[in-house]
Every structure is written in C-alpha cells, then in structure tokens.
C-alpha cells in the first residue's frame, strides 16, 4: 500500500486524469463512429414524406460536394451509414414538393453517429 503512495502527487494525478479522459473519449469514439445519420423528412405542413432524396455533402474548399444519397421510406425516415466526415451538410429533395435548405451539422469526431432531433423540412417551391 505504502509503496504506491509516491504516485499520489499532483503530476501523476493531473496527467493520469488526462490519460484516463483521453482513453474514455477514444473508447466512446470507437463505439460511436459508424457514420450513421438518422432522421426524418417532413413536408411543409409537417407530414412525413416518403420517397424524398436525402443528400449528404461534404464541404471541400469552396463548394459542397454530394457524397451520399438515400431515399426515405414510408414513414419519412432515412438512414445513411458509413460517412467519414466531421462536418456534414444535409439536404432533402422531393421534386413534386420542394427541397429543404442545405443545413450544416458539425460533429465532434469523424464519422460520428448523428440522430436528427428536428426533421428536415421541405419547403414548397425551393429546389
């Protein structure tokens, strides 16, 4: 017991805490970096929209480049898997109804799972 008491100084405690925090953070990342984006698409009046195309884009230096596209199911939900970005732009389009504004979502690490609380709302007339 006494032999380890020399470890109880502020250097060991400080750096130990940092190391533990870093390890925990990396553990958290390891379990949450599947690159899953889940969300819903709704129309102007709030009803779920099936068959809308959701485009995930990455911003390169000047322009946003579409990287993945998925289509919503009957309940208006969509799931994107396997993105590898720490900033994603999402946009939903359904030609007959309209499009949602392209919105940026910033993530804490590359490929972080993202569950959209707010649905992507299509606006009539926009494209």
């Amino acid at each position, binding site marked *: 017991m006494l032999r380890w008491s020399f470890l109880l100084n502020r*250097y060991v405690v*400080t750096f130990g805490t940092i190391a533990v925090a870093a390890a925990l953070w990396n553990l958290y990342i390891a379990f949450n970096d599947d690159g899953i984006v889940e969300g819903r698409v709704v129309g102007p009046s709030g009803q779920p929209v099936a068959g809308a195309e959701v485009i995930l884009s990455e911003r390169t230096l000047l322009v946003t480049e579409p990287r993945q596209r998925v289509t919503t199911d009957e309940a208006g939900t969509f799931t994107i898997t396997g993105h590898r970005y*720490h900033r994603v732009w999402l946009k939903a389009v359904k030609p007959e109804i309209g499009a949602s504004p392209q919105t940026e979502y910033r*993530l804490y690490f*590359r490929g972080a799972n993202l569950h959209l609380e707010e649905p992507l709302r299509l606006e009539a007339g926009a494209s």
Partner: protein
Amino acid sequence: MTRYPKWAIHLGLAIICTLMLIPFYWVLKTSLTGENIFSYPPAILPENPHLFYYVDVWYSIPFFRYLVNSVVVSIIVVVGNVVLNAMAGYALTRDFTGKGSVIMLFLSCMMIPFQVTIIPAYLITKELGLLNSHLGMALPLCSTIVCIFVFKASFDAIPKSLIDAARIDGVPDWMIIFRIMVPLSQSAIATNIILAFIWSWNNFLWPLIIIRDNDMQTLPLGLARFLTVVEDTTGALYAFCIMVLVPGLMIFLLAQKQFIAGLTSGAAKG
C-alpha cells in the same frame, strides 16, 4: 511598509491581473464563439459557445503528429539536459587542471545568444545529416550552462565528508552518484527538467530553420504556419492557439516553484 489601505492594493492588483489575463480570455472566447467572428461590435461573452473549432483543428492539420514531435523533442532535451548537465556539474565540483578555463569557457558561451549562431549551426546540422530530425532539433538545447551551474551549486552543497566516507567504504563512483548525489539534488533536477521542457516546448527559430518536412513540424511551427495553410478558419486558429498553450501552461502551473527558482538562480549567476 504599508502606506496604502489594503483594498487599494487589491484593487490595483486586480486591475493589473485583468490586463494580463484579457489577451488569454479574448482568444479563448474567440475559439469558443458560435457567432460570426467578424461581426462588429465583437461580443464580450461568447454567444452559443461550442467546441467545434477544436474539432476542425484536429482534422485540418496533423495535430497529433505535431504534438508527438513536440513531445519527443522535449523528452530528448529534458533527458539530455538532466544527464549531461549533472555530469558536467559533477565534474566541476572536482579539482583538476584546466577547471578555471572550463568555467571561463562556459561563462563566455553564455554570452553567445543562440540567435547569432543560426547560420553555421544550420550548416553544421546539415553536415551531420540531422536536418528534419528530432535529434537535430533537440541537440543544441541538450546542455544548458545555467543548469550546469545549478547542478554544481547543488552538488557543492552536499557535505564532502559524506562522499569521502562512502568512497573510503569502497562504494563505486556511479553508486555515489545515484544513491547520494541524485537524491540530495532533487530540486536541481526538478528545476532543470522544467526549464528544459519550457525552452524546448516553446522553441521556434531553430525548428523553423532546420525543419522542411511537414511531418516533422512541432507545435509552434504548425501554429505559425497554420494561417498560410488554412484560410477561412479564423476560429480554428485560435482554438489551435489554445490547444498549444494549455500543455505549457499546465506544466508551468504544476511546477511553478521550480520554474521560478530556476529562472532566478539562472538570472543571479554572473
């Protein structure tokens, strides 16, 4: 000595400390701010603070690589300093012919600022094939004259009789060093570690000269070159700045006493 009421002194110091801390605060605020950085008037408190600029830094440059480079160089410098300075300091406690000239040599070397040696030092490093390497960055800092004298003073303070007694008992020299000298000069070692660390951690000019390879950059180099690498990411620059400041400040705050002791003992030496 007090002529002023205490509250006046507190007030004066509080104002001074605020002035000293404002620059830190301003950069911290900018690195956290959620609003448009370039809107006028600037907000005093960060609005919608977020940590995403830090994420941007992490991915837009090889931050971890720079950190590792800085740490590796610092470790080489710290180990080199403690070992070489202790050895030299120990040698200077013994009597030998030429001791006076060696001390004179050290003292006059102290008068040569590193900055006036950069050109030939660069050429020498090139000849040694150490450009773009950790060792090349660390080598010039691996022994510091101030710290040699700190060690010498500390060894001189150890009673001669203790060492002589050990020597008569037939204890070998290396054991005398590790069992008697080192434990008794802990404060000199601590001083040297912290000084060497801060010097190497903050060193900029030398890496700037000898590092061409992007993979070998240390944190200060990365910080200075960040602007030219990434335009449009002002917030990230200040986040990077904070990320670079924190380790140095943390170690300073942990070892403040030794650091100040080292600086003042270095400053008092003639």
